[in-house]
């Protein structure tokens, strides 16, 4: 299964959330690849805490691979190479978790047929090796988005199942932008159809993840006044209506990640330790991530009985 993580804007928590989903799936025993196609601003190294392992991959990352400078992109075994003390003790029965980093300092780029073929080669190879391949894409209708839309429409990839997650924050602007990224004239669906995807199939394989959503019921806001609480409720209501009008209502939402203070401070993986022992992260956040990770391959959440 390939999972593409997209968002219209930066700062939606796309990278950190999709990395957490990859981590959660690896904990359940799946072999997981995390592919950093966020060419503008690669953050995966920070999230997985592998800065040391990144040294020496500067010229062997996905950029160099797609441009044909190297025949195999660098890979980082997260359990083995992370500097995060908890992750290094690879949990028993976990699957492999492998990061494919971008090149340091590689921006967006445009190349043609060759890069597309190499992209298909890579995705096919990873599909043959891993149970789950999470591909983090640069924000917006980026080159990365176009490339994977074209690659997944490639005849060689006709039997490879894929799904899209579109991340957005829970504000008016983000809801409208996320809807636009998928449904607008130059959105993912139209772009996919132009490249040979079946419209209905593509539509059925896109779900939304609301990230950094403040829960009015949460103890975080318990100190607020009744007026503030009422205002938040009203906003939440209005946003739900707005989302539904923009065709990204609850029926196409795969999950909601609550606003998590530690993720506001630092992009990182949320471990059980963070919730149970040090209690710096909220239980609800971890549960939401676990649940979304599970739903990635649960067909009942993808309109299939």
């Amino acid at each position, binding site marked *: 299964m390939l999972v593409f993580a997209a968002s219209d804007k930066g700062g939606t928590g796309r990278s950190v959330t999709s990395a957490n989903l990859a981590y959660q799936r690896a904990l359940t025993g799946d072999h997981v690849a995390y592919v950093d196609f966020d060419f503008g601003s690669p953050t995966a190294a920070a999230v997985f805490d592998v800065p040391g392992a990144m040294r020496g991959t500067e010229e062997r990352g996905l950029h160099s691979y797609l441009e044909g400078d190297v025949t195999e992109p660098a890979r980082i075994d997260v359990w083995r190479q992370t500097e995060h003390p908890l992750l290094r003790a690879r949990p028993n029965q976990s699957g492999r978790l492998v990061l494919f980093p971008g090149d340091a300092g590689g921006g967006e780029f445009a190349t043609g047929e060759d890069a597309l073929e190499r992209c298909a080669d890579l995705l096919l190879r990873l599909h043959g090796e891993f149970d789950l391949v999470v591909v983090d894409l640069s924000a917006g209708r980026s080159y990365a988005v176009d490339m994977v839309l074209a690659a997944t429409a490639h005849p060689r990839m006709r*039997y490879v199942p894929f799904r899209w997650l579109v991340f957005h924050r829970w504000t008016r602007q983000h809801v409208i932008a996320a809807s636009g990224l998928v449904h607008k004239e130059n959105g993912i669906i139209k772009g996919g159809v132009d490249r040979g995807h079946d419209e209905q199939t593509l539509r059925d394989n896109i779900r939304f993840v609301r990230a950094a959503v403040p829960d009015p019921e949460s103890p975080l806001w318990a100190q607020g006044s009744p007026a503030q609480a009422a205002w938040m409720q009203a906003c939440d209501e209005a946003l739900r209506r707005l989302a539904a009008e923009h065709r990204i209502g609850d029926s196409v939402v795969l999950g909601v990640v609550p606003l998590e203070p530690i993720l506001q401070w630092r992009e990182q993986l949320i471990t059980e330790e963070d919730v149970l022992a040090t209690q710096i992260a909220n239980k609800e956040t971890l549960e939401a991530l676990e649940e979304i990770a599970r739903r990635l391959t649960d067909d009942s959440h993808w309109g299939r009985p």
Partner: protein
Amino acid sequence: MRPGESAPHAVLACGEVRTCLLPAQQALDSRAAAQLLGLRADERVLLSERPNLYGRSPDILTGVDCPLPSANGSRVRAVGTVAARASLTEGRVLQSSAYFRVPAAGPDHRRPWGHYLVRPGVVEPFGTLPREAVAQGLLAGGRHGDLDVGLIAGGLLTRLLRHPLLDQRPPLKSRPTRLRWVALPADPGDGPSIERFTLAEDELRTVRLRVPEDTRSADVAGLCDDLALHDWLLTTVVRILDGIRLGSAPPPARPRPTAEDDRPPVVRALRPAVDHLLHLWMPRARVAEQLAPLWDVLEERPGFTRQWQTLVQRIRDQLTLHAIPSPHREVEPVP
């Protein structure tokens, strides 16, 4: 010895083999294998059906002119051709193998290409070859820009994997492996020997051999293909069995994703091994007679076939256990 090999004796041979599962739902029959492996219009694919179904492409040559990797930093420029070929075993396991041999010394200037073209698979050094340093450098992997035989093997594999015959629906998840080898001449009178066989990284193996001086490098490459094939089989089946431990007792807090079919997870995981891998074990099937004794050493230690038989037995035991209707099983079988 072929006419092309009459040039100065090779004192070093080197190669790399990539081994992977053919990404197709059904194994290829011999006709399809011939199509896949038909890399050259002017030469036929070698096909054989005894003792197992096997196809091998003709050699293709890649011209090279670059430094040889070396352990001590000395830069020896070398020019010549690297030979590469692909093979398919039982229509299921695909291998690409690139190799070359190096004479002890060469002229310190580049000769016309015609000179190199009549010596396929020979790379000539400029001046004298620092043999030991280059052998170590080749196994360790060179710097960017050094001669990289793995790059040639990888390029050939990529080309084959794009073939339209392949539906890209592999029946099981598996990892490709790489096996890099160097062969140095044995002392006069000595037979072939394996000096070292290491599992360097996750998917990289390195082998250092000594072979009698008249051994053809294509035969050494054939031996290493055979080693790589069986090492890949062991690695892949071990991983399948590792995986079922995960599936058999999921922690209740994290249920496994729902599956479409209701076979027990263990059976679902083991079935592809039975369908596609267990019948492939056949060491020495195509190893030159002169080199076949090397397998005996590996059978002694670490004991390739011994491990394989244990794995096969485990798989059969698991399937037998699951064939018993569950009310009659006292406990859930755990591997």
